[in-house]
């Protein structure tokens, strides 16, 4: 990433925190690319899907974006979050592997492969409260807007926004913990 790209990233995030939704989507897209490269370079062992790190980092960026100081560059903030999430995942995965190894040597390998086929985010989504899950799925999986989701589920737009935000916070908390 050169200086111009870095300045562009900062500009997009600044526009995003001022309420520009399109700039925010563009920022997240660029962030996803950067974190993907970062995670792929560092994940050398099996059992961790770099895309899970990308998604968990994007969720963290989203829920913690008020911690970014608008006069600071965006890249160091973004990479610090990605590094934190990667280390946290290494720690959690390591612990999970230890448990598996202790209990039964034989099942360790095949179970690892099964896990890789399903995204962490889908597993977190599956255990949400039904109301939140309906809203988050409608927006994410079906691609509906807030307004369409409100009509479909017979809710007000405000209630949809609240459920979406709470659902995303709950997914971030459950990520990699089940």
């Amino acid at each position: 990433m050169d200086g111009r790209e870095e300045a562009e990233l900062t500009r997009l995030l600044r526009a995003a925190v001022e309420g520009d939704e399109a700039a925010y989507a563009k920022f997240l897209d660029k962030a996803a690319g950067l974190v993907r490269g970062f995670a792929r370079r560092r994940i050398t062992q099996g059992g961790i899907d770099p895309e899970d790190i990308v998604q968990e980092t994007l969720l963290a960026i989203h829920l913690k974006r008020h911690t970014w100081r608008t006069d600071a560059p965006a890249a160091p903030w973004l990479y610090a979050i990605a590094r934190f999430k990667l280390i946290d995942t290494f720690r959690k995965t390591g612990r999970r592997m230890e448990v598996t190894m202790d209990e039964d040597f034989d099942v360790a390998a095949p179970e690892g492969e099964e896990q890789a086929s399903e995204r962490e985010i889908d597993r977190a989504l599956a255990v949400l409260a039904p109301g939140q899950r309906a809203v988050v799925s409608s927006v994410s999986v079906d691609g509906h807007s807030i307004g369409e989701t409100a009509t479909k589920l017979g809710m007000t737009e405000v209630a949809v926004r609240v459920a979406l935000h709470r659902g995303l916070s709950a997914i971030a908390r459950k990520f990699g913990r089940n």
Partner: protein
Amino acid sequence: METDRLIRTLAADGAPRGMSMSRVWSLTALAAAAIAAAVFFMSIGPRGDIADAAHTIRFLFKFVVTLALFATAFAALRGLAIPGVNPARAMAPLVLAPALLLIAVGLELLAIPPSQIESRWIGSNALICMTFIPMIGIGPLAAFLFALRNGAPTRPSLAGAVSGLVAGGLSATFYAAHCTDDSPLFVATFYPLAVAILVVAGAVAGRFVARW
């Protein structure tokens, strides 16, 4: 769910933003001070001769040290809650309070006759100090740890430990108004031991409370 779907979903959730960090920290500091004051006045309260003591330099200097600890640790904590802020740089101001205290210890050793060193050093309130600084500080510690959840500390244990320093600085400020042992020799020995209890508690709790 594929990542571009997630990005669209996050962008759709663009509107609600939580309270700004500086607002949360200001409110937390106010709440912590109120908790500490309540516990202090309901338990030990200020010493009886505080009006006279307020004219002595040793008494006043205790507040310079404890308030310096509170202010520098609070600034460090705010930095540690932000991803990408270098922890060492955020914590650099923490040298101020110990440095002030060391200078005061040196001056005290020059000022008093050697025969008085032991009695001033050990004082008569060591156990009370080590009981009440943690007791007054435990509520504020909980408040600062809770506020940390609104931030994004990439070193949760360290941030928890520094929360203990902030709570300790606040608590020691109140306790200093009670204690009659004003010598820097006493302050440099027993205050740090008492604050260390809060630091350890904060480090342990931070691992769990400040996760995100």
